C-alpha cells in the first residue's frame, strides 16, 4: 500500500494505491496517518481510493477508525472513486449509510465546502 498525501485548501487528500490488507501492514497505518493529520489540526480528509485494488476487513477497520477519530473532532471524512467491490462491501455492511461516498473526487472536494 502506498499513500500519498496532498492538501487542497483545508482538505487533506490521501491518494491510496495498491491493497489495504492486514498482511501488508507497515509501520504507518492509514489510521495513524489520519491521526497525524488530525494532530496537525486538519479536520477534513478525503480518501481517494481510485487506485486501490483490494481492501480487506482490516482496511475497512482502518477507514472506520479514521472516521471515528475525525468525527470525534467535528471533522469530515469522505471517500471517492471507490471500486464497485468496495462499494459492495459498504453496502452489505450498511456503511454506505454512515460514510460519505462520492463517485468523483472533485465533487467530493467541492462537497466539503457545501456540507
Amino acid at each position: 500500500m502506498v499513500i500519498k498525501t496532498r492538501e487542497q485548501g483545508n482538505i487533506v487528500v490521501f491518494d491510496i494505491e495498491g491493497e489495504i490488507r492486514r498482511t501488508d501492514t507497515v509501520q504507518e497505518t492509514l489510521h495513524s496517518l489520519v491521526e497525524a493529520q488530525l494532530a496537525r489540526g486538519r479536520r477534513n480528509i478525503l480518501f481517494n481510493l481510485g487506485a486501490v485494488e483490494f481492501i480487506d476487513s482490516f482496511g475497512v477497520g482502518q477507514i472506520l477508525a479514521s472516521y471515528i477519530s475525525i468525527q470525534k473532532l467535528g471533522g469530515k471524512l469522505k471517500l471517492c472513486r471507490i471500486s464497485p467491490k468496495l462499494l459492495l462491501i459498504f453496502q452489505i455492511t450498511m456503511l454506505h449509510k454512515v460514510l460519505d461516498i462520492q463517485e468523483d473526487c472533485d465533487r467530493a472536494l467541492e462537497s466539503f465546502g457545501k456540507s
Partner: protein
Amino acid sequence: MALSLSALFFLITSTFYIIKPVRESFLIAAKPSWWPYADLATALLIGFVVAFNARLLARLPRRTYLTASLLFFIAGVLLFWFIFNVHQRSLVTTPVVDPSGVFFLLWAQAMIGRFYTVLVIAFCFWTDLFIAMSVTQFWIAVNDAFDPHQAKRLVGLFVSGGLFGGIAGSAVAALVTFVRIIQPEDLLLLCPVLLVLALVTVNLVYATRAKPEAQAAGPASSRSVKVGYLESFRTVSRNRYLLLLAGMLGAAMVVASLINYQFKTVLKHAYASDQARTSAIAVFFLVIWAVSTVFHLLTTGRVLKSYGIRWAVSIAPAFLLACSAAVFLIPVGAMLAWAWVARGSDKTFDNTLTQSVRELLYVPVAPELKYRAKIFIDMFVNKFATGLGAALFLVLYHVRQFDYRADQPLAIIRETGLVTLVFACIWLVLTRFVYREYPAVLKRDLTQLWMDGQQVVDTRIDEGLVRQVFEAIQSRERSTTLYYMNVFNLVRRKNLTPELKELLGIKRDEIKARAMDSLFDVGGSVFFPGLEETITDSDFQKEIDFIFLLPSYQKIMDDRLGAIAASPSEVDRIEAANSISRMAPSPPTMEALARLLQDPSPEVVLYALNSAAVHRRPEHVPLILRQLANPMATAEARSALAAYGPGLEPLVAPALSSPDQPLEVRRAIPEVLARLGTQKAADILVAELARRQDDMEQPLIDALYRIRADCTEIRFRDRDLRPELHRLICKACDLVLDPPVSSEEFKALLDIRVRRVFDLLTLMYPREDIVNDYQHILQGTSRSVDYSLEHLDNLLDREDKELLFPLIEDLPAEERAQRLRKALRLK
C-alpha cells in the same frame, strides 16, 4: 333352496355325530397299541382318496357325482353295520351250520373275527373320509346354487344347520344308547335313513338350482390352475409368518392328538361295555356341542373384541397347558373328570375360539398365498401332526410298556401328559411368535398412500431459502444495497444452483448482457459486474464477517443505527432491519431492532423478524408475539420464534393460555411450540388441550401431530391424552347421532373430527401405523380397509377401540347409531 342346503348340512353332521361315538367306542375297545394306526391310516391315505375324489369331481356331472358319493357312503355304513353286527353276535352265540347252507355268513363270521381290529381301523378311516368328503361336497353344492355374494350372506344359515345337526346327532346317539334301546352298532342303521334324506335333498337342490349347469361347473373349472404340493410347500417355507403359522397349527394338532389318546385310555378303563362307553361318548359330544354353542355365542366374539387376537390366540394353548400340567396333581378318582375337561376344552376351543382365530390369522395373507398355504397346512401339516401324535403315542406305548401296565391308567396318561406338556409349550411359544409377526404381516400391505403436506414441505422444499429468494428478487425493485445484502445472505446460506443465480440475476454473463443495454439498472445504479465471483468468494465473505466484528464498526453503528431505524425512508429502515442480523447484539442495536419490530411498514417488520430470529433476545418475544396477529407477518413471526429454540417455552406459554391475547396469536403459538420440538413444548400443548377450548383444538392437535412426526423421542402420557382422545371421539359420535341437515357439511365435519382423532392417536401408538391405517380407511381398497381395521383392532387399547370402531367401520346407519349410543353410554 337355502333351507334345503341348510337341511343337507344338518343331515350330514347329524349322520357324522351318530357314527362318531360308535367309531370312538369301537376303537377304544381295541388294544391301545392299535389306536394310533387309525390316525396314521387317515393321515397317510386320505390325501390319495381326496385326490381321487377331485378327479371324479372334474369328470362326472355334479349331480351324478354327489348322488354316487352319497350312495357309496350309504353302502359303506350298511357294510360296517353288518360287520359289527356279525362280530357282536359271534361273541354271544356259536355259529351253527344251518341246512339252508348260508356258508357265506359263516365265512364272514370267521374272517371278521380274525381281522376285526383292522376292520375297526378301516371304519375309522371311512368315517374320517365321510366327514371330509361330505363337508366338501356340501360347500360344492352351495357354490353351485349361489354366487359368492349370496353364499356369504347365507353362510350363517348353513352353519346353523351344521350346528343343530351336530347337536341332534349327538343327542340321538346319547339317548338311544343311554336307554339301551338298541346295540351301539345298530346306531349305524339310523345313518342310511338320514343319508337317503340327504340324497333326496341334493337332488331337489340341483333340480331347482338358480345357476345354470355351465355355471355350476364353475368352481372345478376355475380351479383348473392347480397348485401342486411342492409349490404350496415352497410358498409356506419362504414365508416366515406362514411357516410359524404352520408350526403353531401343527403343534396344536399334536396336542389334540395326544389328549385324545389320554382320553381314550381313561375311557377304556372307566367303561367296560361297548354300550356304556358309546353312550358316554355320545353324551360327551352332545355336551361339547352344547358348551361350544353357548361358549361361542357368549365368549368368542367378546374375547376377540375385547382382547384382540393377541390374547385370543393364547387362550387355548394356555388352558390346555394347564390341563396337561394338572394331570400330575389329580387323584385316580378324578381321572375321568380330568379327561372330560381336557378333551372337552380342546374340542370346544377347536369349534369356537381357535377356529375363529385361525381364520383371522389368515386375514393378512394375500388370497393367492393363502390358497396355496392352506393346501399345504390342511393337507400336509395337519396330517403330519396327527401322524406325529400317533407315532409318539406308539413309541411311548412300546418304550414304556403300556401293554403290561393297562391297570395303571393314571400313570399312562401322566407319561403321555409329559409329551403333551412339551407340545403345549411349543404351541404357546409359537402363538407368541405368530402374534409378533401378525401385525407386521398386516402392515406389509398398508404402505403410506401419500405424504403429509408438512412432510412434503419439510423434505422437498427449503422454505427459508424460498422466502429469501423471493425477498432478494423483490429487493431489486427497492434498492441495490438491499439486493446485495439479500444475495450475500443467500450465498452465505448455501451454494446457489446456476438456475437460482440466473433467477437472482447474479450470473456473470447475465449481468454483462443486461448491463450493456442498461436493463439491469435499478434505482439509478448499475449492478456490479463481478458480483458472482466476488460474492461467492469465501475470502470476501470472511472479510465481511470481520467487518461486522470490528469494534470501530460496532461503535459507529451503536451511534448511528438508532437514527437509521427512525429514518423516514422505508428503504433505510429495511436495510437497517436487514443488517442487524449480522451485527453484534449491543444494547443500542437491540433497541433499534425492537423499534423496527414495531415499524408500521410490514416489509420492515419482516426483515426485523429475520434479524430477531438471529439474535433471539427474550425482550423481543412480546413484540414478535404481537406480529402473530399480523396476517402479513404471521409466518415470519412464527419462524422467528421457532428460531429461539429450546428455552422459549416459558416465554410463550402464558400467551397461549391468556384470554387477553388475540385469538390469532394464541392459535399461532402451538405451531411455534411444535417447531421447538421439546418435551416441555409437548407438555404445554397437552395441558392446553386439556383446557378444552374449541377454538384452540385444531391448532393444538396439529401441533402435537407435528411434534410426534418430527421428534420421535418425545413421550406422551396416556393418562393425559386418553381423556382428550375419548372426548374427541365422543364429539365425532355426537355429530353422527345428531347430524347437520346438509349431508355434505356432515361428511366434511365428520372427516375433520375423525382426522383429529387419528392425529391424537399418533401420540399414543406408533405414528406410522396410525397414519397408514387412517389413509387406507379413508382411501384404500376394501381389502386394505379390512387390513387397517384388523390392524387397529390389534393395536388399540380396548376402551379406545370400543369408542372408535363404530365410527370407522363400514356399518349400516342404524347399526352404527345403535353401536355409537352403546359406546357413549359405556363411556
